[in-house]
């Protein structure tokens, strides 16, 4: 029974990883770019949600503000990481440039937040602290359940969008080859910001749900969640959004179960060991394509 409860907790934690992993996998799949600003976007949204709620506003105000800031920040990042390099060097992804610029942005965001609110973890006064029910002795938190449902629904909507709509077709053509997409009449300069807006939206949503579910924020939460999400993305296969769901949930469960069986100290070894094994022996992940993310950098 205890194990069943742990598996449920793992799935709930995994649902947050799923959203961040989808954000990673989108930018890698579409633009072949490992976007290191994702932890920063996640953290900024979480911190703003906490700060506005702590200042006495309704939590919905705080989370909308957090989401708006994250999306705008993501668009600014797009200008300096992808668009500029693209304009200057053709295929920007041949270089390590976007990666380095995104690391620069990560440093900027983390230190601005640290300067404003300090490094201490803050506790978030969740409006849904006791919203839970139990079935046969197993406890389900309602916000956690909602975030699990939301992340699956979002990925479903995203895959529909990619498959059925004009925008989705344009995005898939950019993923194949940006230059050819341009020749075929896709306005790459206008479509790429959409990917970044989606990234900002997914990260912010994950950050807000994480804040509400785990009632704890600090300037460093993004690092932990994003690194685990990267592991989830690799397990699912780079560039594959359904793989990101499976990978995120697997990582959530591996994390919770290894803490349950072996304690919190060992947690890094199973998560990263699993990821390294997959990288070396099945680099496409469980569901991935081989082509994506194999460029020079």
């Amino acid at each position, binding site marked *: 029974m205890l194990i069943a409860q742990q598996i449920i907790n793992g799935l709930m934690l995994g649902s947050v990883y799923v959203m961040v992993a989808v954000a990673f996998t989108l930018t890698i799949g579409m633009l072949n770019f490992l976007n290191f600003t994702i932890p920063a976007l996640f953290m900024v949204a979480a911190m703003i949600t906490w700060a506005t709620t702590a200042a006495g506003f309704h939590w919905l105000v705080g989370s909308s503000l957090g989401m708006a800031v994250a999306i705008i920040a993501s668009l600014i990042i797009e200008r300096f990481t992808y668009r500029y390099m693209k304009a200057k060097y053709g295929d920007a992804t041949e270089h390590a440039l976007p990666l380095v610029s995104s690391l620069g942005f990560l440093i900027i965001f983390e*230190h601005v937040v640290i300067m404003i609110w300090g490094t201490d973890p803050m506790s978030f006064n969740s409006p849904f602290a006791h919203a839970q029910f139990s079935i046969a002795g197993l406890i389900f938190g309602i916000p956690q359940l909602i975030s699990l449902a939301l992340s699956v629904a979002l990925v479903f909507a995203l895959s529909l969008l990619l498959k059925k709509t004009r925008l989705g077709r344009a995005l898939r053509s950019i993923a194949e080859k940006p230059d050819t997409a341009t020749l075929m009449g896709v306005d790459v300069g206008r479509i790429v910001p959409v990917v970044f807006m989606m990234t900002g939206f997914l990260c912010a949503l994950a950050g807000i749900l994480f804040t509400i579910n785990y009632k704890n924020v600090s300037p460093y939460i993004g690092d932990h969640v994003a690194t685990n999400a990267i592991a989830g993305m690799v397990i699912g296969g780079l560039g594959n959004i359904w793989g990101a769901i499976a990978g995120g949930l697997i990582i959530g469960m591996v994390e919770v179960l290894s803490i349950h069986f072996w304690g919190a100290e060992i947690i890094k*070894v199973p998560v990263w060991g699993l990821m390294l094994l997959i990288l070396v022996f099945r680099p496409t992940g469980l569901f991935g394509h081989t082509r994506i993310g194999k460029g020079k950098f």
Partner: protein
Amino acid sequence: MSAYLTGLIVILCLNIIIAYSVFLPAAAGQLNLGAAGFMIIGAYMDAYLNSADDGLGLPMLLSVPAAALFTALIGFLVSFPILRTRGVYMILATFAFAEIVAGIVLNMEVVGGASGFPVSSHAELEDLLPVTIGVVLFGFYLISTRFGLAMRSIHDDESVAILFGVNARHIQVGAFTIGAFLGGLAGALYGHQFDYIEVQNWGILFSIFVLLYVLIGGTQTPWGPLIGALFFTFVPELLRAVGDATGWELIGELRFAVFGAIIVGMMVLRPEGIMTRTFLELLFRKVPQRSPQNPPNNMEGV
């Protein structure tokens, strides 16, 4: 010399060594986000060998090279699976390696686990300085050899290098192993400088910063890591000094954020790093020779 300056130079020396450790694979086209892993192995191996109570009690002169060699061995062994991957996958694999090393050391009671491990003997700056200079000279020498030429050719275009008979695999394993040796050396020396080592010092941010030293410095020439480490060590301190001098405390408090902005700006202005081959030529060129037969080669190395 003030204690502040001495401390700063110690950090600079360690940064330079670890920067060369990441530079060598990067010069052969392999981005390594696992600098922390090698540093942890070197630091703990050295502390264990050096410690009289818990370890073997070897003198520093033996324990440091032994720890570096041990790290090189580990680097050699993991280079085979890791070099199967490339691009983004390689970045992720090296990062996973560093995290696994941190996770394992965190659970080894013999070296203190999460509470850290004390280092018995202390080394002064006078011991660190010659080693650092040696590492820099070695870096320059290595790039000037045939091995270094092969590394650079793989960095520029792996397929063409293989067509010209370069054994890319050997070169990459070699570069990665030497990089691991230097990483272990940096870790061991770190322990002797600060007398106490903790795994928590070497997280994701550490590896990111070391990779940035190299990429901001430039991977084309052996000047890159040296300049990158200088830049990363002194610019935040300079910003702090500017903040103190002008009375704008905001600059001092925001120095890392300003620094991030500098990184972003740097990628816009000098995408191949501060020090590139063309820039070097510009600095040391004697007389520009232009003739119709030999048009100047102004191609930025891509």
